[in-house]
């Protein structure tokens, strides 16, 4: 039966395609919509958090840290409540990672502070003796790309209806404001100042006071939001 196809390249290719596409149709499609419902309390990232998330991606933190707590006692004891699908609905892309050279970070905001992250990123072994993580000192100098983060927020709002500028829980207040470019800039700087107030590095404090946001500030905002 297959011999017939071996002399007819066109039909051969069609049959190959059916064979390889089959699994995707059965496996990927059916539960797609169900996975897109947010859990109660899950909110979109602010512009500063998005900028921090982009720093996390830029420096490939996900190469060594997962953001997925599996439903085992050893994991929930170590990291907190296991992960739920609805917690990730605003994650584009997802950042589960595939290797834990360092610990999981899905709820790192619950047990680490701004201060701790600051020391950790500058000199990891100073807070975790024996750590094999590199220093990310350049994040204290590089300026975070707020424009791109704003562009990203506007894009997901327009294209995917991500609920920015929306009252999510019906208490009459907008949960995550986005607004115009100027409004977003001002809001972002305000959040950055709150983070920098908890930091020790003078250069970072000065930069924020001058209206510039170093990558480390955005990154910490993002890490603190992981709860």
């Amino acid at each position, binding site marked *: 039966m*297959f011999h017939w196809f*071996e*002399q007819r*390249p066109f039909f*051969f*290719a069609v049959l*190959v*395609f059916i*064979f*390889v*596409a089959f*699994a*995707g149709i059965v496996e*990927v499609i059916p539960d797609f919509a*169900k*996975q*897109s419902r947010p859990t109660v309390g899950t909110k979109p990232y602010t512009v500063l958090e998005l900028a921090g998330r982009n720093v996390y*991606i*830029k*420096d*490939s*933190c996900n*190469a060594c840290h997962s953001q*997925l707590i*599996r439903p*085992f006692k*050893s994991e929930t*004891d*170590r990291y907190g409540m296991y992960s739920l*699908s609805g*917690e*990730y*609905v*605003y*994650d*584009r*892309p*997802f950042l*589960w*990672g*595939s*290797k*834990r*050279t*360092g610990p999981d970070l899905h709820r790192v905001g619950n047990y680490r502070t701004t201060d701790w992250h600051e020391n950790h990123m500058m000199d990891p072994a100073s807070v975790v003796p*024996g*750590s*094999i*993580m*590199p*220093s990310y000192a*350049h994040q204290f100098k590089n300026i975070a*790309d707020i424009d*791109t983060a*704003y*562009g*990203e927020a*506007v*894009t997901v709002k*327009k294209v995917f209806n991500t609920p920015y500028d929306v009252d999510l829980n019906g208490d009459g207040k907008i949960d995550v404001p986005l607004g115009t470019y100027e409004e977003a800039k001002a809001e972002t700087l305000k959040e950055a100042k709150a983070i920098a107030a908890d930091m020790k590095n003078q250069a970072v404090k000065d930069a924020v006071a001058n209206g510039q946001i170093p990558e480390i500030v955005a990154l910490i905002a993002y890490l603190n939001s992981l709860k």
Partner: protein
Amino acid sequence: MQNGAQIEYDYSIAKAFTFATILFGIIGMLVGVILAFQLAFPQLNELAGEYGTFSRLRPLHTNGVAFGFTLSGIFATWYYISQRVLKVSLKESPFLMAIGKLHFLLYFITILLAVVTLLAGITTSKEYAELEWPIDILVVLWWVLWGVSIFGLIGIRRERTLYISIWYFIASFLAVAMLYLFNNMEVPTALVSGYGSWMHSVSMYAGTNDALVQWWYGHNAVGFVFTVPIIAMIYYFLPKESGQNVYSYKLSILAFWGLLFVYLWAGGHHLIYSTVPDWMQTMGSVMSIVLILPSWGSAINMLLTMKGEWQQLQTNTLIKFMILASTFYMLSTIEGPIQSIKSVNAIAHFTDWIPGHVHDGTLGWVTFMVMAALYHMAPRMYGRELYSKSLMDTQFWLQTTGIVLYFTSMWIAGITQGMMWRAYDEYGSLLYSFIDTVTVLKPYYTIRAVGGLLYLIGFFMFAYNMYKTATAGRVLDKEPINATPVAA
């Protein structure tokens, strides 16, 4: 062309891709060895500021070896094998010749752009799909050009029936095209919003869905780059080199269609105990076990091809390379299914056993087969004997030792770490803090790095041997029939 006349094949594109294979092989593997040493000696992260950290270099390594080295090798063998089994020459079709050249050019530019952007931290973060959207478009362009080459050459063929290797090339082309397109669906943010970097994009899928599409891609794109075209190679080169027929046609049929049908389900095993629905996790697990059958089908077909001719292992180094490749294919296709059993996965997932498994496949199977293929092609492309047999033998044993050091250390490291993460003391508290499970791995990281270094040295020997063959090997007066001639 008249019947019975000798076809004059054109190897210019195959030669260009051979050069790219060696170049990107050296770069990709060198970065890999640096990464391995960085894990054992973290100070090495400080060599080049933000551009030299483990996290920046890691995607460079995976992209470099998967899409720089392996794909070059695949394309090189395609432009060599296709002319021969389809009985046509690229010389006969200026159109397909031009397509081939453009294919090489765009491909080469893409890989160079990939190196630059990944070092700069421009990445989508999805594993093996890190390149940003403008480069993705370039990838699609040359992938289509490869498709034109495949179906173009098939269209003008003189051999009516498609040889097994051609089946696998077609499958690789179609499957990767489908997977790549769906997984890289991205929305460029600057185009929609008018703000920020034009290179930046967001994924079309969010969270769990993104993970599902990503691992449907991640496992299978790698499968259809690291498995399928490499099987195409061994189905051509092992019978050619040994002068033996493929053992069983029926087994080839069964293994081919079985592999295509089962392979794509296996992506789900990356998501066991994650937030994707349970039935998908189970499906991924079960189908990964079923996958043993078609995988071993091909491998056994190859091993049995040597039936009655096993003494060639002693005299022909290339046979040694290919048989070791087949054996490692069997090893890694039994190891993968074992890791996808749920209870084993609970320990193995997130640990070093996973890179260990991948490298069994890539070092033992893929790279060995690609090197054997290029060694077989060189005398026929350049009309010269291979430069040195003793160098080949030394390379073989050095690299084999390297692989053994690599996988044994990573097996132990992975299982150790997985067991330590879940260990409790008598009072019901976790026995180890996370950092304990990191520092305990240092010796294994060192052993792995040494293994990788041995392998890299072997690859330099390969590069040198190929270079010397092309420039200084003894000239052959006619093309060898099967066994590749090697100087002493």
